[in-house]
């Protein structure tokens, strides 16, 4: 299995290798001319443009998150989730792994992935806290929703051609709890990471000067998308709220007909019939609301978080460019240390090119994923609504049929009397 080893001098935290499978999947080479110059990254830069269908054919790693369990220690209470991995990849010693992970571990993984690939689009994690209050952290629904989101997160990473090769990802999936703990302690210490952050802040204050047009376009898109997807999220949550209130009233409606039937003689049949219909429609309405809450709401919510990730990615790209521009200016103005400065500037320029091509490549992939996810979520919702109305219609038609039959029976009675 061949692979391209990345120059670890350029990317001090990079320890991943390229899987061979990916190289066979490079179909649509990126037409960006810049990539030709940086041949050692050429394969990497174009790797993201393969079709989704192809990716699923070659899926060689399957990850599931399930089985939440709560753990109580002297210090704290927390939830762990079972992470199950099945893979045929050769860099994994076994073909199956089962480990337990807590939310903190997922956060760690995401951080490591973003550190190593600042301009790749990493799927968002579910939020750390529920805004309303800590107490709700361990509510059943919350855990279920979080578990599903964590599952999706890991699967997105597993499906990503670059990210799935991350050593951190492999450790996350395979290491026992104590192994993971000690692994986490490696790598740059707190101080060096803080230094990175300070530099990033300084760069963002300086601002980027010559941002390429396509990234400005990307930023505008992300702003607008973020706006729209937030609106959709709010609208959908509002619909869920209104549906629940409708359901509440409907639940009171049916029983009144039953009550009424107690006072009547001839009308007992139709009154009870109507009560029964309304009750069944209530059940269908409940199911429909649940579907919305289980499918559409989480998906939209995730893309709200996604748009925040995208903004962060664009910021990081800008910072990388800003850092280079700063060094470049220094190169032009300072007269001493020209050699060292030149080397540093070249390194930073490489970094910018690499970051740009990574983002450009991942952008198309992200858009395809987004389109697929949202399209599928809306289609499912539409289908569920169709099912809902079809079931309700059947309920009322059965009632009508029973009334028409009764009607003809009565007519026969009248004739014979």
């Amino acid at each position, binding site marked *: 299995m061949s692979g391209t080893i990345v120059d670890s001098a350029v990317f001090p935290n990079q320890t991943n290798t390229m899987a061979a499978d990916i190289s066979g999947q490079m179909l649509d080479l990126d037409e960006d001319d810049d990539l030709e110059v940086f041949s050692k990254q050429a394969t990497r830069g174009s790797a993201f443009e393969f079709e989704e269908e192809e990716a699923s054919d070659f899926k060689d790693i399957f990850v599931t998150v399930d089985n939440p369990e709560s753990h109580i220690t002297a210090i704290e209470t927390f939830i762990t989730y079972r992470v199950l991995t099945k893979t045929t990849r050769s860099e994994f010693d076994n073909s199956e792994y089962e480990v337990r992970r807590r939310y903190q571990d997922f956060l760690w993984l995401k951080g490591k992935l973003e550190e190593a690939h600042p301009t790749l689009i990493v799927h968002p994690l579910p939020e750390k806290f529920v805004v309303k209050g800590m107490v709700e952290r361990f509510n059943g629904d919350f855990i279920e929703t979080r578990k599903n989101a964590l599952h999706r997160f890991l699967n997105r990473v597993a499906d990503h051609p670059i990210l799935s090769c991350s050593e951190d990802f492999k450790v996350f999936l395979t290491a026992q709890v104590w192994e993971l703990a000690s692994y986490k302690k490696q790598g740059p210490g707190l101080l060096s990471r803080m230094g990175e952050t300070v530099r990033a802040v300084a760069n963002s204050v300086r601002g980027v000067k010559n941002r390429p047009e396509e990234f400005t376009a990307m930023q505008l*898109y992300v702003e*607008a*998308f973020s706006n*729209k*997807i937030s*609106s*959709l999220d709010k*609208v959908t949550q*509002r*619909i869920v709220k*209104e*549906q629940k*209130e*409708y359901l*509440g*009233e*409907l639940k*009171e*409606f049916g029983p*009144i*007909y039953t*009550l*009424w039937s107690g*006072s*009547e003689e*001839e*009308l007992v049949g*139709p*009154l009870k*019939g*109507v009560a029964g*219909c309304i009750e069944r*429609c209530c059940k269908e309405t409940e199911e429909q609301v649940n579907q919305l809450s289980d499918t559409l709401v989480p998906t939209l919510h995730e893309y709200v978080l996604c748009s925040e990730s995208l903004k962060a990615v664009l910021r990081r790209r800008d910072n990388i460019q800003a850092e280079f521009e700063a060094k470049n200016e220094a190169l032009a103005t300072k007269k001493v240390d020209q050699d060292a400065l030149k080397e540093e500037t070249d390194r930073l320029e490489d970094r910018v090119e690499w970051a740009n091509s990574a983002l450009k490549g991942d952008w198309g992939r992200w858009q395809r994923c987004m*389109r697929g996810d*949202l*399209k599928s979520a*809306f*289609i499912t919702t*539409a*289908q569920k*609504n*169709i099912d*809902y*109305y*079809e079931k*309700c*219609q059947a309920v*009322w*038609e059965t*009632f*009508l049929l029973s*009334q028409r039959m009764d009607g003809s029976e009565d007519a026969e009675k009248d004739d014979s009397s």
Partner: protein
Amino acid sequence: MRNTAGTIIMAEAVHEEPARIGGGKLTDTEIENNKNNTMVEQSSTLLRRLEISVAEAEKRTGKNTVNMQETFTVYLIETRPIDAITDGHNPAPDSLWRRYSEFELLRNYLLVTYPFIVVPPLPEKRAEFVWHKLSADNLDPDFVERRRVGLENFLLRVASHSVLSNDKILYHFLTEEHEWKEVVYETGFQAKADSRIKALSATFRVKNPDKRFTEMRHYSDELQSITSQLLRVRARVADRLYGVYKVHGNYGRVFSEWSAIEKEMGDGLQSAGHHMDAYAASVDDILEEEEHYADQLKEYLFYAEALRAVCRKHELIQYELETASSDLVSKKHQREELATGMVRTFSFKGMTNKLFGQEAPEQREARLGLLEEQIVEGEETVKEKTSECQEYVKDAWVDIQRFKEQKDRDLREALVSYAVMQISMCKKGIQVWTNAKECFQKM
């Protein structure tokens, strides 16, 4: 027989309606048959001879009783004789304008004149059970339209009732615009109306009412309570349904905006957005149709009141009979006392006699004479009241049976039409979401 006023009107009606099929005075048997066959044939009812409709409504302004300007609505009543139409002609209808208050006056007159009939109700005076979109304003065009339909329904019900349809005042109401009010007041019906308090107290103090009427009164209470509850919850359900549909309109707006920034997804989103707008708009028609169902329930909410009134009237008449009977008994006891000198029960007169000595024989004779007269009167009263009571029970029970069958028919039909409405709503929903799904698939 029914009360005297009814009989007289009956006879007059016979004389004044030249186009009546079958002509001549109805015999008692025929009257009886007509009451029983109301549902099957309407050959003796007004509606068979006259086409009636409340065709339009208009706003007017005028001075009211305290000489202040007010705006009110008038309704156009159109009538055409049926045989003129069936003869192949198409004559223009006779018409006149009436206000809601005049309908009320007519109904009050009918209530007093035919207390043994469950008189059809008018549409509500003020909009109640309103949900947020619906206006509570009496001048709102939707409210006026629904009221027009309700008034027409009232006239049709009255004109097809075997007893009520023969009323002369009703005919007047339909055919002569001016001075109708004066004619109604001249009947003196207002003086015959029972006081509320009298009626209420009778309900509590009557000893042996016909059990069937007591049960019916309980039923009328239940019917009123149930329909009122149903209407309240239905309004809330309608309100919520409105909310659900209308929020989907926001999808339309956002999809449209979103489609502007997308390439492949743009078309699919845009057209899906249109369907979401259509979905949001569809609720207006759906709920407008449902108002008709609410109106049907309301009619029976008000019918419950009319039914209760008939039962109460029985209790009142029965109570008056019981009172007359017990008065008679007590007067007879007094006579016995006076005649025999025996004191059966404690009486003031007896006490004073003991204390102050017996009264003079002339005084005694006078009192005895008076008592005898009173007893004769009392017996006559009891006889009349007994007869009145029997007649009332007979006539009222017939109409209650008629009402019951009508109610069962109408409410069953209302429930069926509610189901039909629900099915229509579901079909619309399926169509919209199927269209939307197709658009999503093109995303």
